[in-house]
């Protein structure tokens, strides 16, 4: 766009502009109106709350996951925020630095979200189904137990030991989960049994 403006006209306009802003600064006329003051919009409104247990350590702090979109209503859910559950007797809402940063853990690009398999000596991971993963684990356990199970010791006493396999359980589970895990593992005769609380 061309503006037809003489040199004299240009100086005139510039001068008028400077005069107007100067008058403004001197207090004539209202100062430019400021944007309405408002605090940041509250980001949890209408979120879905899901109670859960922190995955990290054996303290097993209660957490609340706040997500947008309701899975129960067949929507896609996106995790927006995680914070401690003030109603949980373990932590009463508090969290450690790792727990406070759980959102980053959940949304991490490198997080394992599906079962994968790497063959002995292999270098590549391949995706497998949960069914295939459970079958593989069950097969390996059964073969190992059949080969190495000790029913009686040297003195002929019944011991029912299986010493060549170990089990690493989750320390963050509830009492009920712990009871079930313990019964499952011990009923197979596994002795090496631990959880990440001692890691």
């Amino acid at each position, binding site marked *: 766009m061309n503006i037809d403006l003489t040199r004299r006209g240009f100086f005139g306009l510039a001068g008028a502009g400077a*005069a107007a802003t*100067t008058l403004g*600064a*001197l207090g004539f006329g209202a*100062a*430019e*109106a*400021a*944007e*309405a*003051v*408002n*605090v*940041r*919009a*509250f*980001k*949890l*409104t*209408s*979120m*879905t*709350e899901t109670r859960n247990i922190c995955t990290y350590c054996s303290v097993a702090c209660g957490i*609340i996951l*706040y997500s947008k979109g309701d899975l129960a209503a067949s929507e896609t859910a996106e995790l927006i*925020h*995680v*914070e*401690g*559950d*003030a*109603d949980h007797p373990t*932590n*009463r*809402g*508090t*969290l*450690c*630095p*790792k*727990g*406070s*940063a759980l*959102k*980053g853990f959940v949304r991490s690009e490198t997080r394992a979200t599906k079962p994968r398999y790497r063959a002995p000596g292999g270098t590549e991971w391949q995706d497998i189904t949960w069914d295939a993963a459970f079958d593989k684990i069950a097969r390996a356990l059964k073969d190992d137990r059949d080969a190495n199970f000790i029913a009686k010791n040297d003195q002929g006493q019944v011991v029912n030991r299986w010493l060549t396999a170990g089990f690493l359980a989750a320390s963050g589970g509830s009492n009920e989960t712990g009871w079930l895990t313990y019964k499952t593992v011990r009923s197979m005769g596994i002795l090496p049994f631990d959880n990440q609380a001692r890691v």
Partner: protein
Amino acid sequence: MTDRAPQPTTAAANPPVQPLASNLLPSDVVRASAMPHITAPDRQLTKVAKLIDVSKCIGCKACQSACAEWNDTSPEIGENVGLYENPADLSSEMFTLMRYAEYENPATNELEWLIRKEGCMHCEDPGCLRACPAPGAIVQYSNGIVDFIHENCIGCGYCVTGCPFDVPRISPVKHVSTKCTLCSDRVAMGQGPACAKACPTQAITFGTKEAMIAHAEERIEDLKSRGYENAGLYDPQGVGGTHVMYVLHHADQPSLYSGLPDDPQIAPIVEDWKGPAKKVGLAAIGLAAVGAALHGIFARPLKVEPEDEEDAEGLVEAAERRAREDRA
């Protein structure tokens, strides 16, 4: 009609997800930068405060994690510069920072690890707000929270100079000033700040200022009974008191805690710049304008009178005569 959120009394609560009307309104602003005439609010909110008991702090940085999580900031993965601090300094992506000081106490000959959570102190008389030239970029609510309104910020950095605690940081990306908001968005919904909720040892607590002072007194009494004779509350009166207070074991020497100012004051240059210097400058501009106008009205272009023409002719002739004589 949605209900209005309650006033906050504690950080140990689960935030609501049902729609609630905010309880921290534009009409609750008592002071705004570069806007001297604010309509007085029709109500007075209860003053709130965050109390940081450094004697209970274990330096775990949960407050930093919770702060970044709630405020959706993402501090860059930095480099280890040989400090416990991580990141090394406050930034526009890290509103609060654990500062670690090692102090050899000459009285006991023991090493003390003094850990302080640094961040905005939410002064009753905020130096940043006084220094700020952008209308409405920094506001103070009647509950004591000092908040930055990014839409009005021009990124000049005067608030950084004005702050006695060296807290605000200018975002190199958005070119606006940033700092802890005391989670004003949570407070507006009746909640406490994210750091206070997360703190595993409850070294950070939140509530009404009155309740926090009472809590601090209990803590100080306890610390004194354990041999910290100089334990006390840090609520510096040089800035009118603060809405983030510390319980210190060495309240007689706040500077031990990574340079916490012993007696913070708003720099006199801020007052001079915004007060007398501004008035003098504006007066000079006004006088210049008045002078220019008077000059335009009274001064007239120079007139050439017939005598001037005669004089000029005489001068020209004399010059020509001299030139001829020189050539001859």
